[in-house]
């Protein structure tokens, strides 16, 4: 059975007008597997992850409505009470955020922050927690951990902070790690280090991971299964290799064609997706991507397209034939 089974997750914000940020997202995460949620800004990937662990601002108030199911080992996260969720967060499910500086408390030393997680969830003594915190920092590749324990977040570089945050996340050996754009704020060489570290942690601990990113390159190197999100819905879902080798949804194809690649011919004209993420159609009227899609046909406006196909599934009535990777090179 899958470790996490998300079914028809929906998130609606009710402000001046209703905004359906996530509109029926379904995916599963198996133990020890890295699942990618890929999409551009506003596609709902971050909202999805926050809703799962009950950390949306004003979640469970009338301003935000969350529907659907998210079974984590049989427990529906969306219906769990606050105390249960608090216990699960940090121990069973841990999260790594994009901006390590704002995710760390600036006036508390790193060591105390890492140890706190252990004291809270594992109930170990403070001294023991400090000792283990040093081990953790060492494990995530922070040199001279005993000295670093006493330092404050601003004294660490961006990469080190992200490592410290990862140390906190893996402190209790969670079964699921949610990483929300963990390397976006970092330089490429540091990004490579962090990705390598995440890969290693997942492999060693058998932790499942949800990787949220906009970078298809990161996905290609890390994820086992990839879900491409557009306007709050999964539009294509496949294992890593088939997704990149034979993308089917015009949006996925468009994305792959529009990024300049290090391994592609130089100066070749890119094929952009026209319009912007703002030009969406409400799913109830048809395919949200239709206004930007070169393959749009009449049926696209006939109503919401269903997701079809297994294990390579897609939400499109006029799917593309995939990009010819040979030609791109």
């Amino acid at each position: 059975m899958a470790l996490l089974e998300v079914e028809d997750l929906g998130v609606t914000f009710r402000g001046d007008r209703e905004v359906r940020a996530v509109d029926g997202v379904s995916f599963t995460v198996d133990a020890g597997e890295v699942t990618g949620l890929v999409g551009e800004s506003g596609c709902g990937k971050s909202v999805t992850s926050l809703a799962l662990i009950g950390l949306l601002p004003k979640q469970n108030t009338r301003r935000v409505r969350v529907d659907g199911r998210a079974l984590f080992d049989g427990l529906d996260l969306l219906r769990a009470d606050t105390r249960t969720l608090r216990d699960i967060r940090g121990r069973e499910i841990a999260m790594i955020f994009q901006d390590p500086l704002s995710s760390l408390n600036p006036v508390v030393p790193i060591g105390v922050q890492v140890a706190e997680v252990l004291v809270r969830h594992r109930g170990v003594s403070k001294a023991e927690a400090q000792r283990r915190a040093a081990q953790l920092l060492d494990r995530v590749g922070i040199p001279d951990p005993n000295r670093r324990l006493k330092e404050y977040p601003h004294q660490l570089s961006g990469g080190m902070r992200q490592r410290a945050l990862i140390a906190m996340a893996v402190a209790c050996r969670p079964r699921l790690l949610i990483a929300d754009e963990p390397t976006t704020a970092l330089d490429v060489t540091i990004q490579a280090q962090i990705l390598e570290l995440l890969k290693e942690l997942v492999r060693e601990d058998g932790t499942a991971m949800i990787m949220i990113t906009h970078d298809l390159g990161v996905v290609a190197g890390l994820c086992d299964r990839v879900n491409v999100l557009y306007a709050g819905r999964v539009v294509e879902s496949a294992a890593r290799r088939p997704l990149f080798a034979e993308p089917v949804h015009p949006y996925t194809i468009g994305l792959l064609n529009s990024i300049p690649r290090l391994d592609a011919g130089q100066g070749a004209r890119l094929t952009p997706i026209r319009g912007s993420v703002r030009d969406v159609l409400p799913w109830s009227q048809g395919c949200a991507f239709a206004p930007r899609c070169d393959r749009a046909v009449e049926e696209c406006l006939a109503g919401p397209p269903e997701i079809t196909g297994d294990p390579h599934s897609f939400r499109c009535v006029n799917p593309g034939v995939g990009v010819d990777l040979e030609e791109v090179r």
Partner: protein
Amino acid sequence: MTDLTPMLPAPEPRPAEPDSQTPTASLAGLTPKARRQRLDRLAELAAVHAEEKGRSLWAEAFRRLRRNPAAVAGTVVLLLFVLVALIGPLFVPYDPTSTAWADQVKEGQNIIPGPSAQHWFGLDHNGRDEFSRVIVGARQTLLVGVVATALGLIVGCLLGGLAGSAYGLGGRAGRRIDNVVMRVIDMLLAMPSLLLAVSIAALLGPSLTTVMIAIGVISVPVFARLLRGSMLAQANSEYVTAATALGVRRWRIALVHVLPNSLGPVLVQATLTLATAIIEAAALSFLGLGNPDPAVPEWGVMLTDALTRLEVAPRLTIYPAVGIIITAFGFTLLGEALREALDPKLRR
């Protein structure tokens, strides 16, 4: 299958590329009804991007303000207040300075007649009609608040604007100008505000003008610091660099770009200062620094007079006090709502 591509709204048109081939639209194969429906739907889609005029940030802020109940409540209160202050004196039943009913007041016996059909709020200690005095007093109070705040705002913005633009855009010499101006401001700030007001009043003699100047002067450093800080933050922003890169002159950058973008917090402060200015004016009048002529009604003076007779006629303190509270409350409501409306975090 019909290709719909060209009909779909493309508000961000593709850059003109030689290789882009636009397939021709074909609506021909459809029944008229279906065609109309589809066109309607697409028109609806495109409507968001149609030729409506752009809305400036001020307009957006105003729109948010209009939808904020606190702002509406504050505005209504203030409009009433202004209305009373402006045209109230024309409709009052009696001359507020007339002591025609002095014979009914017997202070020695602790008798000050209360509300009656003839005198709605009763009489004051000199036998004047209290209702007329409260209404006419509104005008003085409004005058003090507005003039004092305007004084503080203008002088403060001149000083703060000078310092801010000098520091933000003027290089080393600019930093020196800023330093001098700000040290003067700091000295003003270091003085206890009431003490400053008392000394000004002592210098100029008690009068309404004294009160206005005193309150204006104490709010100068607040406005100056606020505008300078806001301008410094704006001077570091990218659009200022962009304007510099365009070759725009520095004074123009300061006036056209930095200043308008820095005014938000100052405006909010001005509404809040209006509220405190009214209270402070009352306080100064209370201390006897206001208009020495007790015949002209002003809420602060009325409050002072009434306080000495608190046991005899507590209602006499309540009328002006409630007036002051409601007005200050109105300004505060509006100020807070304005702060919310101008908050850059709410901008999309």
